[in-house]
């Protein structure tokens, strides 16, 4: 809604009165939409990054993760260094959000990471991954290889539209 309001506002202001309003090409309008979306994405990314990747209270470190959307499936991967393979748990928090947790084979504290002025130790890796498209979580499969967790989630099928 925000994009729409501000873009429409600029369309009106650019032309002066309604009668003499200069008609702009659809390409200009689309470009403005794209620019605004990019600016907003940057803002979200920056805001998201302005927080630590660790949480002393829950003794957890946030691992790196990634989402690929394919035609028939969504593949979520996570880099889980030092994870105990037996302890990896994947749970669906909502239809569009999964949580990955794993205990680490050894405790890690700030000093192990070369930082002496902070206190706290970490025993697990934990992250939440939003899913961009609807999936069938009950049919998900996962494997853990070379420290990388890979979860394959089949996408929900829509209605097929017949031709003719």
């Amino acid at each position: 809604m925000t994009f729409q309001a501000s873009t429409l506002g600029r369309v009106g202001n650019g032309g002066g009165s309604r009668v003499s309003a200069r008609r702009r090409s659809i390409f200009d309008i689309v470009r403005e939409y794209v620019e605004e979306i990019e600016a907003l994405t940057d803002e979200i990314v920056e805001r998201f990054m302005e927080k630590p990747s660790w949480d002393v209270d829950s003794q957890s470190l946030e691992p790196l993760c990634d989402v690929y959307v394919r035609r028939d499936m969504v593949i979520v991967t996570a880099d889980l260094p030092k994870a105990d393979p037996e302890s990896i748990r994947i749970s669906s928090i909502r239809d569009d959000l999964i949580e990955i947790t794993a205990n680490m084979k050894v405790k890690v504290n700030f000093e192990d990471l070369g930082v002496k002025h902070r206190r706290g130790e970490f025993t697990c890796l934990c992250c939440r991954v939003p899913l961009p498209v609807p999936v069938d979580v009950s049919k998900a499969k996962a494997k853990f290889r070379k420290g990388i967790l890979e979860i394959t989630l089949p996408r929900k099928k829509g209605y097929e539209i017949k031709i003719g």
Partner: protein
Amino acid sequence: MVRLLSDRGEKLSAELVRVVERKGIPEGIKIICGLPDVGLVGVIAAAHIISKLNLKEVAYVETELLPPVIMLENGLPKPPIRIFGNNDLLVLISEIAIPSDSIHQIIKSIIDWAWSKRAEKILTLSGLPVPNRHELEKIRIFGAASNDMMLKVLMDNEIEIIERGFLAGPQALILKYCAEKNMPAIALLAEAFYNYPDPEASSLIIQALNKVMNINVDVSELIEKGEEVRLAMRDMMRRTQTELAKMRKSHEYDVPGFYIR
């Protein structure tokens, strides 16, 4: 030698970015670059080489184009982009992600400086993103260069050359600016994770560098400490990933549209 840069271009780069030498740096030296890119392959490799060869800080990059960040070492401020070295080689490393909108100016100024030092050659270490990296049993190493002489060096060392395709980011600009000056430069790229720190790829790129430069940097410790490295490099990887997206790094997956023979 004739400088092909315009006065205006040179003045601009001198104002915004300069390399400050803390110790006298001899002319004709080799420079290895490890800048943040996919899998942080170059940064991890550069840090390992600095540690193994016990290189000392000899210069740093002074610029206001980076975020207002310093590295504290034993309580004292250090600039994020530094050069370590001995009498034979220098290693340039950045400890923070370089903002995409300053990368041109920073690389250009570093290459101008290397040119002024009559550097023998520049070797930039990096990763080549592959989507199925975690399924690969064997990581391949590729190379590209700034001139024919350096391509021959790659071929002599049996490193496969990327004949056609896109490169984006620091090593793309290093090759570009070196080619403009006909300065010898080689980019070594190991297949790597796009957005996970990849110490295994770094160890293989060091082994390729050992061959090309005829040096002997042991990588066993890097392989052993792989999990520690992956854990410690998460934050830098996260920030680098944001900048890589802005540099349109995914161009490297693209198939070029035309084939001009």
